């Protein structure tokens, strides 16, 4: 069981080595970096046994490490996505500055996430949580200067969450003189009601910050878009899932014992639904791909929160499956944006267009990821969406399902905007030089895209670990009752048999593709995008006809009233109010001796005047 120690030693040593190996040469640095991540990953899956805990007590505090099935499920996200993103970032960071800094923080955050998963006591949980926050914060300010205070915003919200969690830990410890999570869960039902309500609220605040839940999400767009893309794929794909991880534990193990738990669940579910809807609307508005994906991450996390919050078995399955899917497709999409940024130097839809014939593999992975994001069959996203809808309908959340449906239908707009803005449209002279991204960047994207396609028809691959994890959390097995390897059931007994549907989709597509290519694809001549029927005009070389500004304007006009104010503003006004209040206080304490003398004198006079009354 010393493997866990070994893994963390590998991580730390690898991080420090990588940081200093930059002086010896970039290739060596890449090799050490990859060796650290991949070695630790393989060691974890080879050497670590599940449900095999080890405890040690430095300074009288019992700490326990070890991983259960539930953590193992999330370790799939963290380590799988982490290693792919590591391979990607080797290509991404080629020829960039501050590589040592990047690699160091990358390894540290992967280690911290793994630590969160393996730590069975609150102390190490909190320590790893803080390491994660710090390393991601350093990544957000990777560019050195932190204009518009994006990193600061992220850090303030993380700090709020951390303090909430610390308070909760202290409260728990004051009741049960131990830090073990298991003991906390056992002791929870005996606590007094107010504590039973306050401890989950504090924990959920901490986790909600990381999961970018509705009122606490304002840091996310800036932080996601300002950190390097190779890390953002992990940031949005895996790091936000830590919040979901904690949330699920709290919801399942604590709140389900609480008679008032239904309020927690409903509030969380509705918050998730609002997050989904508003995040989608704001994503449609964006013109920068990073911002668009950041808002869409918020929206997707909203789906996940809703799924885990309604708390039925199907809902938890849906939420956790969507979490895995979100890690896959959002990681892929951020990688795509990174590749485009590396090749063209910009990520603005209004600047770069028509890359489909220049970067075909990037387009392929982006297409599959977008189909999965939109939840269109036969890709994996549909499975999660289907289970989410069925869970909501069968658990009588009728208006919530309408809200979720609205969000996921409006998501088509930004899905199409993403694909169209980058890959479609007029091909311009400006981007003629663009080539396909290097193999180290393309291979991870394509691998993840293909895995999504596989999950579309064989979701059992992921549903099996989820089932084990839920059993660990004390659910009865959802196997055979809600899903088979490629069949999904809802609790009313209706089913979706995925494999024949997939086969027929493929068959029909191939048939009509052949019908279209009857005379041969070569028989028809390729004409450039300048050769379009624009009422007889021939567009000039530098005349760009691509429709990219004000993309979904009619829709935004229709939903305009909803998007009048951002939650961001409320926080800003709150901060301004505090500032003016402190300004007022500063007026009283001028720091001038005479003023204080006057204060003392006035006080004495008042006392003398009213001494009869007072004494």
């Amino acid at each position, binding site marked *: 069981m010393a493997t866990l120690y070994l893994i963390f030693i590998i991580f730390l040593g690898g991080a420090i080595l990588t940081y200093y190996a930059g002086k010896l040469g970039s290739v060596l640095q890449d090799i050490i970096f990859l060796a650290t991540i991949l070695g630790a990953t393989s060691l974890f899956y080879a050497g670590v046994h599940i449900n095999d805990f080890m405890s040690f007590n430095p300074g009288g505090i019992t700490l326990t490490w070890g991983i259960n099935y539930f953590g193992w499920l999330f370790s799939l996200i963290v380590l799988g996505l982490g290693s792919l993103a590591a391979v990607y970032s080797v290509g991404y960071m080629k020829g960039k500055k501050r590589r040592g800094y990047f690699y160091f923080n990358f390894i540290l955050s992967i280690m911290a996430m793994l630590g969160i998963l393996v730590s069975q006591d609150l102390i190490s949980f909190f320590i790893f949580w803080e390491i994660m926050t710090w390393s991601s914060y350093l990544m957000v300010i990777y560019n050195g200067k932190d204009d518009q205070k994006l990193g600061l915003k992220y850090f303030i919200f993380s700090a709020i969450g951390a303090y909430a969690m610390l308070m909760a830990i202290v409260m728990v410890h004051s009741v049960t003189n131990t830090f073990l999570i298991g003991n906390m869960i056992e002791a929870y039902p005996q606590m007094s009601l107010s504590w039973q309500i306050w401890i989950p609220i504090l924990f959920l605040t901490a986790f909600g910050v990381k999961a970018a839940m509705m009122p606490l999400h304002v840091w996310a767009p800036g932080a996601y878009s300002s950190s390097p893309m190779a890390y953002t794929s992990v940031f949005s794909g895996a790091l936000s899932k830590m919040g979901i991880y904690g949330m699920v534990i709290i919801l399942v193990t604590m709140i389900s014992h609480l008679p008032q738990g239904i309020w927690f669940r409903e509030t969380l579910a509705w918050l998730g639904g609002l997050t989904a809807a508003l995040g989608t609307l704001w994503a449609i508005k964006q013109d920068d791909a990073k911002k668009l994906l950041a808002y869409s991450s918020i929206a997707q996390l909203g789906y996940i929160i809703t799924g885990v919050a309604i708390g039925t078995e199907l809902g938890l399955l849906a939420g956790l499956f969507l979490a895995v899917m979100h890690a896959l497709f959002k990681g892929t999409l951020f990688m795509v944006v990174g590749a485009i940024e590396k090749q063209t130097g910009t990520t603005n839809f209004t600047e770069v267009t028509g890359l489909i014939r220049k970067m075909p593999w990037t387009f392929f992975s982006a297409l599959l990821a977008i189909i999965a994001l939109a939840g269109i069959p036969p890709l994996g996203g549909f499975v999660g969406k289907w289970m989410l809808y069925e869970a909501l309908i069968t658990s009588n959340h009728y208006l919530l399902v309408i809200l979720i449906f609205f969000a996921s239908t409006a998501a088509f707009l930004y899905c199409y905007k993403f694909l169209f803005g980058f890959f479609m449209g007029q091909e311009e002279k400006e981007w003629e030089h663009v080539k396909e991204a290097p193999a180290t960047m393309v291979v991870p994207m394509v691998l993840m895209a293909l895995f999504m396609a596989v999950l579309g028809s064989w979701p059992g691959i992921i549903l099996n670990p989820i089932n084990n994890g839920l059993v660990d959390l004390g659910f009865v097995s959802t196997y055979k009752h809600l899903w088979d390897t490629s069949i999904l059931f809802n609790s009313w007994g209706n089913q979706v048999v995925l494999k024949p549907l997939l086969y027929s989709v493929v068959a029909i597509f191939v048939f009509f593709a052949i019908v279209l290519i009857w005379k041969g694809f070569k028989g028809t*001549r390729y*004409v450039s995008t300048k*050769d379009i*029927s624009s*009422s*007889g005009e021939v567009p000039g070389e530098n005349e760009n006809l691509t429709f990219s500004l004000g993309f979904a304007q009619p829709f935004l006009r229709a939903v305009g009233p909803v998007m009048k104010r951002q939650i961001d503003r409320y926080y800003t006004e709150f901060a301004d109010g505090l500032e003016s209040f402190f300004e007022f206080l500063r007026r009283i304490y001028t720091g001038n001796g005479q003023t204080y003398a006057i204060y003392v004198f006035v006080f004495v006079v008042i006392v003398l005047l009213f001494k009869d009354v007072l004494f």
Partner: protein
Amino acid sequence: MYNDKNSQKIVDYIQNWTRKHSIWVLAYGTGCGAIEIPPTMTSRYDSERLGIRGAATPRQADVLLITGYLTVKTLKRVIRVYEQMQDPKYVIGFGSCTINGGMYFDSYNTIKVLDKYLPVDVYINGCMPRPEAVIDGFVKLQKRIGEGRATGAKHYKENLEWYRANQKKIIPNWVMPEYNW
């Protein structure tokens, strides 16, 4: 396409029959003739009963209907539109202006004879031709299509150099994609 193999003959017959009964018109309303198209299409002289309907873009159209005079500037666009259309495609010259300049016979800026620059299948004379005349012209075109004699596009392909020479004579700076299908 119009070869003598008997098997081909039947296919050609069916194809020509469908083509003559479904004519999608791209009306290039250059001159005053554009005003004659709405009555032709709408309730009074309902041309849709003959399968004649408007097309939105050159890619979908069968017939290029040139209504009235063509200045040098519009001739450029008309040639572009014609070359964007897909085979089989036909051209109808509409009004005296396209035949011999009409009332613009001495104008310094309009072409006088359309079939020097584009292969015209059917001319409709008159200034302006009434909708009856327009429909009559369409019926003539249908007849030619049915007999497989509306081969303007083929003729255009074969003597492309001659047409290009005429077009470049009045359009000196020639900026257009080449026409090779």
